[in-house]
């Protein structure tokens, strides 16, 4: 698939604050691409530069091969769905949707047909004459999308489109967005701070922090193989083990000496050398928790621990297990009915096992100190 948007070393500063720093990325035609990051990471500024509300200080933004970085928003074939929808309060749903075509001076018949088509797409014919104040949040959302899509943009930009909705509606709208995307086939660029939204909707995710893209990849890549501590912690929960490479085992594995915990076996994604300081990230669901000491092959790690806290959540249970000087987050899914077992309870002695392949050694970029234990897994 060819790319529809190429961003090359774009920079933007507000005063002394560099909000976007040397960002480069490319978005493929027809995909859903997410910009994910905490508030203030520069994702919205990047989006506003793509839309044309801000001009980059340097770098280029190629839309279908032409540089649009210096064009005003009304001359770019890119449209935005705003965070609070920004529906015109004085216009009806149909007039809101028609706004863009009226501004172009399209013939009335054509506008009518297009509005009709859009109302079909968002299934809101019966509300066409209502004002934005008379429809619900989810409906406003759909009108905002239709209003942008009627312009047949090359890219639809969505700025935290679900942030104002409650949880149930958010889940429903995610499915709705997915359906609309499938139906129109336009490229979506989706800005959010919510990892679940990004994971469930996107083909690719760029995770931003302090103006830089920390990692870019498919949802599975950024979850399973986070490159930095920031990514590991921002997407999902994790346990971090700061340690030192004790020995390298063959071409694929190494032993880490983790102070306060002991020796653990880990898969080496990249070549490491003995004595190197590294951090291992291990997702809570990768653990196996058992009351009896299991017999495990040497490729598995085995640690004794004591149950500190239990949080029952229905489909799963979270445990905090004291293990050496660490408190580990362990997630256990209930494939079988919990009530039939003799349940694990507070202060029980338990055994934790995990496969060496399930841990991921972070690429300690910008010298993330591997010696300070993170608050979650600190003793």
């Amino acid at each position: 698939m060819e790319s529809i948007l190429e961003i090359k070393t774009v920079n933007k500063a507000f005063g002394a604050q560099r909000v976007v720093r040397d960002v480069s990325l490319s978005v493929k035609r027809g995909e859903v691409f997410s910009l994910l990051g905490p508030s203030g990471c520069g994702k919205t500024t990047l989006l506003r530069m793509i839309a044309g509300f801000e001009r980059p200080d340097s770098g280029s933004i190629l839309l279908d091969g032409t540089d649009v970085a210096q064009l005003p928003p009304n001359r770019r074939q890119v449209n935005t769905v705003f965070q609070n929808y920004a529906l015109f309060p004085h216009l009806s749903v149909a007039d809101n949707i028609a706004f863009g075509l009226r501004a172009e001076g399209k013939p009335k018949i054509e506008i009518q047909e297009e509005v009709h088509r859009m109302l079909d797409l968002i299934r809101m014919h019966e509300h066409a004459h209502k004002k934005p104040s008379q429809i619900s949040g989810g409906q406003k959302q759909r009108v905002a999308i239709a209003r942008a899509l009627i312009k047949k943009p090359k890219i639809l930009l969505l700025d935290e489109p679900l942030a104002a909705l409650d949880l149930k509606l958010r889940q429903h709208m995610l499915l709705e967005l997915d359906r609309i995307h499938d139906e129109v086939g336009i490229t979506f660029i989706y800005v959010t701070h919510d990892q679940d939204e990004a994971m469930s909707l996107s083909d690719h995710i760029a995770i931003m922090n302090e103006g830089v893209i920390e990692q870019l990849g498919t949802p599975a890549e950024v979850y399973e193989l986070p490159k930095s501590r920031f990514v590991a912690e921002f997407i999902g929960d994790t346990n971090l083990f700061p340690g030192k490479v004790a020995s390298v085992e063959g071409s694929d594995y190494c032993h880490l000496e983790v102070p306060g915990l002991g020796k653990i076996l880990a898969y080496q994604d990249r070549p490491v050398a003995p004595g190197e300081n590294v951090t291992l990230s291990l997702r809570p669901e990768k653990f196996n928790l058992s009351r009896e000491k299991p017999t495990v092959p040497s490729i598995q790690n085995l640690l004794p621990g004591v149950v500190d806290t239990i949080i029952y959540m229905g489909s799963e249970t979270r445990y905090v297990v004291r293990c050496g000087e660490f408190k580990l987050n362990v997630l256990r899914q209930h494939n079988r009915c919990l009530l039939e077992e003799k349940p694990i309870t507070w202060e029980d002695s338990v055994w934790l096992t995990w496969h060496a392949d399930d841990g991921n050694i972070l690429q300690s970029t910008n010298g993330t100190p591997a010696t300070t234990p993170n608050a979650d897994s600190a003793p």
Partner: protein
Amino acid sequence: MITRLGRWVLSRLRRFLPEWLLTAPSLLWLLLFFVIPSLLVFTVAFRPPDPYGRIGEGWTLDTLARLMQPSYPAILWRTLRVSMVTTLVCLVMAVPAGYWLARQPASRRHWTLLLVILPFWTNFLIRIFAWRTVLHPEGFLQTSLVKLGILSSNASLLYNEGAVLVVLIYTYLPFAIMPVYAAAERFDFQLLDAAQDLGATRFQAFVRVFLPSIQIGLLTATLMVFIPALGSYAIPDLVGGPSSEMVGNKIAQRVFTDRNLPHASGLSALLALAVILPMVIAMVVRSRHPDKVPVEREKGGPREGGAQG
């Protein structure tokens, strides 16, 4: 029966007495000193004057007949025209100024706003007098304009309709800026981004999105300028001439010069009607919720009927 009635009265009393007692001071005061005097304006017009400048006995239609004389409709028309021009100029200046004020960062907005309303806190007469100083035939403006050859030395900046307009605009401009600003402050400026994102030019966005959104502010500004302008008396009296008299001047003349109160009363009744009319219109417009006011109407043609099917 009696006791039942008594109990009912008592229960009503217990329920409404606190409200009645607390409402009484202001309601009675305003009924006595505002509502009754206002109604008097309409009745005294039908009384004859008495030679001592008081109100005579009996009833008459004389005043009404005299108000039909051609000089009065002319003055009424001038009053309306001057007030409309004042309102229009104030709105044209207030919209960009209100827009600019609303876009200021909150920290700066407080002081810029204070700067705009500060002159309004100076005494009304002092402001008029200040303009007399500026426009005075021997003042700096006229002398410099004459020196520059723009004005002939016997022309006058004062005592004409132009001077009345300038001072009226000066006096009521803050009353136009404040409601426009208040409406603009509630305006979501992201809507302008959205309009441009959808292909509108900056001017299109301003006219089709900003102006309709602040229409209540515009309406309030119009009333706040137009109604007091209709009732102007001191401004045309002090900076205007005989050719720029307004209804207010005539009322004052009848009271203080001719001492003909019924005649003054008749003129006031006329002015009151002129004031009530725009207020009723405004009330009708406002009672229809802004949501229901169709703003973007295409000339002729169906309103996207197909889309509603």
